[in-house]
């Protein structure tokens, strides 16, 4: 196997399977990607060419300002008139940036995208009338004569539009962002580049982690394939033992923390901040009440005593999340917002949420936290409890009752009226 690859020294296509070429671009100076990600050594925008007996396919393009490098590599191997297929696995601008110019240079080529990509394509190209494309789903194929490209519908990895394309004859999976990472190395292949394990896991944690369920669905399609190489849109091409990365994705997408909580049990986390101990007393009373319900495992956490990242891990595994905050200057306190603004990397959809807090004169914090939780697609079954300054024994009993009610909803035991009138809803 060659060990002297340096793709930064030329602008040629690089063949890595019979008739399959890398025609991407290097971006070694990039330090921040999509605002949310950092990278210590840049990234690559990987685009690929597949040559068949009846035409050429281009799979994904590059970020617009790297078009020159992409077109130079492409021209080193094929003429634009040979291009029959353009398959876009993901329409984010770092992969679709060179698409308009490619379509201009190869007007005969047919564009293949997922159904969910159509509205994005129109919003990116703003050329409604002229756009010609074919939408594809799992199992759909396109022939290049002696080569067949098969499409796999793998949504939300990492946008709703994402898909993978599999070259059957060579066993190459063009995986889009899946199995990618922001890691720029002129040696290009996983068996030659430096140690990119950190970058691989970091990329998963920020891009794929919120969509673990979709990762598992995608793995069901990917794992049965006779994989010989995985060619993602960022980072090294995985030609050496590609299946290791597929297995690693399954491990990363599987729940790590079980804490001895049984399958039937539900985990409720009560977070709070308290300046004079009033919200803390409410938190304790709510936890006591919730703990009376069989099957609910309640954990009480003072936000002053923890750091955001481990709390995010905990939240990902929890079934119900309660936040207690005093109202200070008409707002919830900063540590609560810090945690509530750090949850984009986990999926909270459908988790139960509730808020509570003591206040001096206006008490906005509770409603603001509830709104934020709704925004995170959590289910808020009940308006939160607010107490003016020091809770009385009656008010603490109200907190216990609130905890019990949330816990009952969590365990599916809440008592409901047969029919509620809309006017009675808060």
């Amino acid at each position: 196997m060659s060990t002297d690859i340096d793709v930064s020294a030329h602008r040629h296509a690089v063949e890595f399977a019979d008739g399959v070429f890398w025609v991407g671009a290097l971006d070694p100076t990039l330090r921040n990607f999509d605002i949310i990600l950092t990278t210590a050594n840049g990234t690559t925008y990987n685009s690929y060419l597949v040559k068949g007996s009846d035409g050429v396919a281009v799979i994904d393009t590059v970020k617009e300002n790297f078009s020159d490098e992409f077109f130079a590599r492409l021209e080193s191997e094929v003429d634009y008139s040979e291009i029959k297929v353009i398959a876009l696995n993901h329409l984010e601008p770092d992969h679709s940036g060179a698409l308009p110019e490619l379509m201009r240079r190869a007007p005969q080529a047919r564009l293949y995208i997922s159904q969910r990509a159509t509205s994005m394509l129109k919003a990116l190209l703003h050329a409604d009338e002229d756009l010609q494309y074919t939408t594809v789903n799992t199992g759909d194929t396109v022939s290049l004569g002696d080569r067949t490209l098969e499409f796999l519908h793998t949504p939300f990895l990492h946008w709703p539009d994402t898909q993978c394309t599999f070259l059957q004859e060579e066993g190459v999976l063009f995986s889009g962002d899946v199995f990618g990472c922001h890691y720029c190395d002129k040696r290009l292949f996983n068996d030659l580049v430096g140690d990119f394990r950190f970058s691989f896991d970091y990329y998963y944690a920020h891009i794929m982690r919120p969509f673990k369920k979709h990762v598992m669905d995608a793995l069901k399609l990917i794992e049965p394939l006779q994989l010989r190489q995985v060619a993602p849109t960022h980072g090294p091409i995985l030609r050496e033992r590609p299946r290791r990365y597929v297995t690693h994705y399954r491990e990363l997408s599987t729940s790590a923390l079980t804490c001895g909580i049984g399958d039937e049990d539900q985990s409720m986390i009560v977070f709070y901040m308290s300046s004079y101990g009033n919200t803390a007393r409410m938190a304790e009373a709510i936890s006591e009440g919730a703990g009376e319900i069989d099957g609910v495992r309640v954990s009480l956490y003072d936000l002053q005593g923890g750091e955001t990242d481990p709390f995010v891990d905990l939240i990902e595994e929890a079934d119900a999340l309660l936040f207690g905050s005093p109202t200070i200057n008409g707002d919830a306190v900063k540590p609560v917002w810090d945690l509530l603004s750090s949850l984009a990397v986990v999926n909270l959809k459908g988790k139960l949420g509730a808020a509570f807090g003591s206040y001096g004169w206006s008490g906005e914090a509770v409603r603001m936290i509830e709104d934020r939780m709704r925004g995170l697609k959590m289910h808020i079954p009940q308006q939160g409890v607010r107490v003016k300054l020091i809770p009385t024994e009656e008010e603490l009993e109200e907190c216990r009752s609130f905890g019990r009610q949330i816990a009952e909803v969590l365990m599916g035991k809440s008592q409901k009226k047969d029919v509620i009138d809309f006017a009675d809803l808060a």
Partner: protein
Amino acid sequence: MAKAKITFEDIEQTVNVPAGTRVIEVSEKIGAGIIYGCREGDCGTCMMHVEEGWNNLTEPSVLEEKVLKENMASRHDRLACQAQIIGDCKVKPA
């Protein structure tokens, strides 16, 4: 004012509402499992499945039809932020 009953199958709850109420207004207040993104019929996040009373919701607009198609909606799926309740129906998250 004419009334209608909407049942949210996932939480087994029925609500009596004034005819013309959008599903989103009820489902958010009652805490049903339908989730929302843009709330203006563009993103498809709030897709729901209509189990019963398909004809008791207002007809989907051309724009809603387009978004449903783009999101690969099944038969009898609607957007909860767009559909208005005009008669008894039963829905659940799609």
